């Protein structure tokens, strides 16, 4: 069987799997960005309790393996009466896991904004909320986007794991085709290529575009 025959027969299945992978990626990306913003700010709170909650959350999700969290969300939560669909469980576990890493990036980004900016905002009598919203947040984007871009590529790779909790994504389809046809080189090779293409020609350019946009916003034309 030539490679073209293989593609002809299984290409559509793999593409359908790719669509699911992209869906998982987009959903968990949105979730992790929101979570990391919230917990990154909580981590810097002066309130001991809020800060404690954020620290426990971050240490917990960074300390355990993503696969364990996925299986926990899918197989163990039903014991407590919470039955999640495979897709939901996958997205939630990915979002929570990457949110923990993202929160640390956000925290570092906020701390990296020069002290003078805080003081100037204070001197101009901005309210704390306005200070964060109008002065600090716009400035953290150029700082946090490069590490966040790395993290997002990691997220794309991590979406492969949701196949193990029965989400029918690219990895799942590749495994399935492999067990039917036993053409391992073709199906896993194609899957690897598709992941590579998504990362190299879609995700990374998009994130790079965001970086340029953020840099322009604070008046840095070139990074």
């Amino acid at each position, binding site marked *: 069987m030539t490679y073209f025959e293989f593609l002809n027969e299984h290409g559509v299945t793999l593409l359908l799997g790719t669509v699911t992978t992209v869906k998982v990626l987009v959903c968990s990306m949105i979730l992790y960005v929101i979570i990391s913003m919230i917990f990154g700010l909580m981590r810097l709170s002066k309130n001991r309790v809020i800060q404690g909650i954020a620290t426990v959350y971050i*240490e*917990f999700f*960074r*300390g*355990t*393996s*993503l*696969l*364990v*969290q996925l*299986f*926990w969300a899918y*197989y*163990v939560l039903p*014991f407590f009466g919470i039955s999640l669909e495979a897709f939901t469980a996958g997205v939630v576990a990915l979002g929570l896991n990457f949110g923990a890493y993202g929160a640390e990036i956000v925290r570092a980004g906020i701390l990296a904004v020069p002290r003078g900016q805080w003081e100037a905002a204070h001197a101009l009598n901005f309210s704390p909320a306005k200070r964060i919203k109008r002065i600090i947040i716009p400035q953290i984007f150029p700082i946090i986007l490069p590490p966040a871009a790395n993290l997002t*590529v990691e997220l*794309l*790779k*991590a*979406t*492969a*794991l949701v*196949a*193990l909790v029965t989400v029918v994504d690219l*990895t799942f389809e*590749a*495994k399935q085709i*492999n067990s039917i046809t036993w053409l*391992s*080189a073709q199906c*896993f*090779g194609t*899957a*690897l290529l598709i*992941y*590579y293409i998504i*990362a*190299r020609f879609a995700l*990374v350019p998009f994130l790079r575009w965001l970086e340029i946009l953020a840099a322009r916003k604070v008046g840095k034309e070139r990074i």
Partner: protein
Amino acid sequence: MGWRWDFTFEILPQMAIATLNTILAAGVGYAIALVVGLFFLLGQKTPFKIVNWINREIVEFIRSTPLLIQLFFVYFVLPQFGITLSAWVCGMITIGLHFGTYLSEVYRGALEGVPKSQWEACRALNFSTIYTYRRIVLPQAFPIAIPGMGNYLVGIFKDTPLLSTIGVAELFHAATAVGGYNYRYLEPYTLVGIIFLTLSIPAAMWVRKLENDVNKAQGKIKK
């Protein structure tokens, strides 16, 4: 269905033995990755443009595709070419290659972190390249590399559960087996999470301390 302590204690010895396997897998994988990283670094530093380019593409490819599919690829495709390796060996090779690319970036960053003037000073003092590396550059690059190297040790440790998908009998594999046999996943998976936490948090703290110690020994922090 609540938590059952008798079941927990029943499976604990089995899990403890599997934990040793996990630690062994992480250790061996890390050792391979450290060496592989050196080779990728070498590929990057050779004066041949074409080698640099191929090296970069390979690194880029490995870094932007999921470890899970790489595992499947190595495990299922190599036998088609007549190379039959055990799951253990396949897992170690794949982890070594995957994280080797990351470590090569850590090494590169560390070497570039040494100021150029150091090189110029050595040139002025007529030191040989080897002597410069051994006595001047590497001792200064090492502390820069430590945080990255430590983080990937913890990273490899947290990615070892993926090995269970190709049948390496590590902690997660044991938990799945025990859970399937008794049809109770609550305790095994929760135990896995707890074991991971109790191992990776101290490891991360140790890395942080090491980083501090090395910095202090280099006189970078005055305390």
